[in-house]
């Protein structure tokens, strides 16, 4: 594909598949039709140029292809033809808070009756247009395994009749949570180094924020991802070594992403319905406000963590709060808090403990804690960072 068509594909694949699923009532058929349309585009557009409304062109072409095909195969497979009639475009608009086809599709992909991994894979496949090999690579599973997972999920959607629908207002809060969690999971998966997955998660996050402008947590999640993404250029040395937040060259942070993220945080504040994503975004907004690490308003960050603990308490949140406590009150009370947490299998727990012990001059214990953290972490960059720190501590 040429660069122009590639861009159109990335931006419009999900929309086209979503519209075609409503029209055809069949996910596989919809995907095939949209892929056919893009194949045709690759042949035609280099000569004719990209049409003024590429998405419209793709959807119309895909729809015509699908209709031709259904007519040809109608005797062989009457079920699809029935389905096409069932989902004919003149059906009355369904009741629901929002009617965008992509929103229906994302709620279908993230239905709680599907396993989380299947939710993630389907969302990337149908809304992001990622290929099965790409998704398999991202999640470090063999391609046939991922293919099987996708087939199983699509079969369950069809046979158990998981509805292609936006949940009713009453169910929305529950289900939005699942949808946002899937997008954040994709982002976190990319944070370890798969930049394309972060890009995809941001694309989906923008989509959700656009489709659900009154859902503050959707705005909060987008803000959170933007503010974390803004630090990417400063997060590693040219050699790929991890650089901690405190040591990052802040002039390398992406100002445009920060401005966008901070304006979303302000919008959330006006909506005044705080949730975990919004608070985490606010915490990151405070970090991105500080011109230097020393100028960070840790008092405000600690207050936000208190709010987060009140709203969505968890040992991991408590651990992050302890990091803020260390900045405000010193490493000793922070260590006392950390030592009450039951997070023995979590590498970050040992890394935070190690750092606090180091700051308290308890070198032997610190070295030991670094060792445990190193053994538990799965990120090569983080392991390398922890090893460097441990070596420096032993040498001092």
């Amino acid at each position, binding site marked *: 594909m040429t660069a122009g068509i590639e861009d159109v594909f990335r931006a419009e694949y999900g929309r086209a598949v979503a519209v075609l699923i409503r029209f055809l009532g069949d996910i596989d058929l919809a995907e095939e039709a949209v892929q056919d349309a893009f194949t045709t585009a690759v042949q035609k557009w280099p000569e004719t140029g990209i049409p003024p409304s590429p998405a419209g062109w793709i959807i119309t072409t895909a729809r015509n292809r699908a209709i031709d095909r259904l007519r040809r195969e109608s005797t062989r497979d009457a079920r699809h033809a029935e389905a096409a009639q069932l989902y004919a475009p003149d059906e009355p608009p369904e009741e629901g808070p929002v009617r965008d086809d992509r929103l229906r599709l994302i709620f279908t992909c993230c*239905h709680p*009756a599907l396993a989380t991994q299947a939710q993630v894979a389907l969302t990337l496949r149908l809304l992001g247009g990622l290929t099965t090999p790409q998704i398999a690579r991202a999640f470090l599973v063999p391609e046939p395994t991922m293919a099987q997972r996708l087939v199983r999920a699509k079969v369950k959607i069809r*046979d*158990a*009749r*998981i*509805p292609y*629908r936006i*949940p009713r207002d009453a169910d929305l809060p529950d289900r939005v949570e699942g949808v946002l969690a899937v997008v954040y999971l994709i982002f976190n998966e990319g944070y370890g180094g798969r930049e394309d997955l972060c890009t995809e998660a941001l694309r989906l996050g923008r989509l959700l924020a656009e489709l659900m402008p009154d859902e503050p947590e959707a705005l909060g999640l987008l803000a959170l991802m933007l503010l974390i993404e803004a630090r990417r250029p400063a997060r590693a040395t040219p050699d790929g070594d991890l650089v901690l937040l405190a040591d990052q060259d802040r002039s390398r942070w992406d100002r445009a992403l920060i401005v966008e993220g901070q304006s979303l945080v302000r919008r959330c504040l006006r909506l005044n319905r705080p949730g975990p994503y919004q608070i985490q975004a606010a915490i990151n907004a405070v970090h991105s406000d500080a011109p230097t690490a020393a100028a960070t308003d840790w008092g405000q960050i600690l207050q936000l963590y208190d709010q987060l603990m009140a709203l969505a308490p968890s040992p991991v949140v408590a651990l992050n709060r302890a990091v803020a406590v260390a900045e405000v009150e010193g490493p000793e009370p922070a260590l006392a808090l950390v030592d009450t947490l039951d997070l023995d299998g979590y590498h970050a727990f040992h890394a935070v403990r190690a750092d606090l012990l180091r700051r308290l001059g308890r070198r032997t214990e610190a070295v030991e804690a670094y060792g445990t953290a190193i053994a538990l972490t799965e990120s090569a960059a983080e392991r390398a960072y922890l090893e460097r720190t441990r070596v420096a501590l032993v040498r001092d």
Partner: protein
Amino acid sequence: MKYYLLSVMQPQGEPPAPEVLEEIMHNLDVFHAELREAGAWVFAGGLHGPETATVLRAKEGDVLVTDGPYTESKEYLGGICLIKASDLDAALEWGRKATVATTLPIEVRPFMGEA
């Protein structure tokens, strides 16, 4: 509409105390009445325990009869409820009520074809 089977997954062991059981039976009656009223009712019933099961196997033109159950396990099918629902969300809504009424896990599975 589509048929869905709600299976009640019952653990092996002592049944609950009579007063607890009485409340469960009452809740089930209310649930079944609600199904009927909504036009979703097809059939429901409890099953005797797995110790009452008999297994038949066709073998070389003959049928072998053995004492059951077919598989030994910690949970067994305690009862079923067959319902009609427009889609999985509607079926899960009934399943939710069933698990609350019975206090037991409910497996929801679609039948092939339409109702």
